């Protein structure tokens, strides 16, 4: 069965509102296209009970399965050097038709490098529409279309996911998750994280970003 992967961003240990929205959008697409929704959760070393609690919340948002990777290298904010190899590993294993990132900086950081590595189509700040087929197929089917305004606002980019043999990577525009679309009981599969390069980049420290109040999880 086709798959959709939705990346989950945590802030202060909590699932962000944009991440719940991304999962709910993946659910909506999966229901129309017939696909499995995988949520990808990346955390530092955490007790299993806390992982299960996060997984329960994510599955309630609409995920069928939770892929969780727990490693010291994943403890900080999601950056390409620390999280990119894991994303590529998941994408190359599942070969999803759609890889979604929640609104905010995480899509800017992780989306373009992943799309380039996979040779995938990419849309930033996209919205998703489910449209009926123009012809009358048997059985009835729907098409999944991603749209975004160009930054210059002179036109829109449009990707029909069904037209691509490659995956489509997209970061979503902000939105509000609908009421819970799933049951809080999805299966959690723990996956290993590729070892970081020994002489690669490393975190020196961080402080809260006062300018990002608007992106705090809701």
């Amino acid at each position: 069965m086709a798959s959709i992967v939705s990346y989950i961003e945590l802030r202060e240990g909590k699932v962000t509102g944009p991440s719940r929205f991304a999962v709910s959008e993946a659910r909506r697409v999966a229901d129309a296209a017939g696909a499995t929704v995988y949520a990808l959760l990346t955390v530092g070393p955490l007790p299993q009970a806390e992982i299960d609690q996060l997984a329960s919340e994510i599955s309630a948002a609409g995920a069928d399965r939770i892929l969780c990777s727990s490693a010291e290298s994943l403890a900080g904010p999601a950056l390409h050097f620390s999280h990119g190899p894991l994303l590529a590993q998941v994408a190359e294993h599942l070969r999803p038709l759609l890889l979604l990132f929640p609104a905010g900086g995480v899509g800017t950081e992780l989306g373009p490098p992943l799309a380039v590595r996979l040779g995938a189509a990419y849309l930033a700040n996209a919205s998703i529409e489910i449209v009926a087929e123009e012809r009358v197929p048997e059985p009835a089917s729907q098409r999944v279309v991603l749209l975004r305004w160009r930054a210059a606002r002179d036109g829109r980019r449009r990707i029909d996911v069904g037209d691509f043999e490659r995956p489509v990577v997209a970061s979503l525009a902000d939105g509000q998750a609908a009421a819970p679309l799933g049951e809080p009981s999805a299966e959690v599969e723990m996956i290993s994280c590729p070892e970081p390069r020994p002489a690669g980049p490393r975190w020196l420290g961080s402080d809260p970003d006062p300018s990002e109040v608007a992106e705090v999880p809701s």
Partner: protein
Amino acid sequence: MIVLVCLEPLTPSRASRAALDLALARAGSAQVAAVVAGGPAGSPALELASAAATRVVHLDDPALDKADFFATGMALAETARHLGAGIVLAGVHSDEEGQGLVPAAIAHHLSAPIFSRVLAMGWPAGSQDLLEVTLRAGGRVGRIATPLPVVLTAEPRTSASSARPPQTPVTVESLGLSQLGLDPSRLVPRPDLLGALVAKS
């Protein structure tokens, strides 16, 4: 050490102007070079670059006018290699498309780490091999130590550009793709990877 700033052809985006400002403010003793891929000679991008950088390269090849982000990134990465640049700076996205794929393609072709939303950079005391980068990520302002080469992107600034002392414009060097070891005939554009363009009605 060379810091290479990538500017879009024609008119540079607000983000790439911020990248140029960042390079000029934080390069320290490093040389700031600039590259413009495509566009005509005498473009605003080249004028801006030649008034600010100490070395300016114009990638002048008709193939670049139709090149997609992947090929453009390849040409810019090869320029960085050609110049021996350890740090490549670009805007996080253009003002037209706004996707941010070219910097990712540069990093891919250089096999270099990429960091977006960069606020500052500097060299830890006594180090020429590691760069310290200050950036915004995940609701935090963090500091990273990274080996070189590295690709950094800056967000558009909301404030005016920092004042710079005027300089006599430097001469623009023109380079063709073949001088970088690239075969223009093999740069097949794949515009479908950005989606079809639906004009505003």
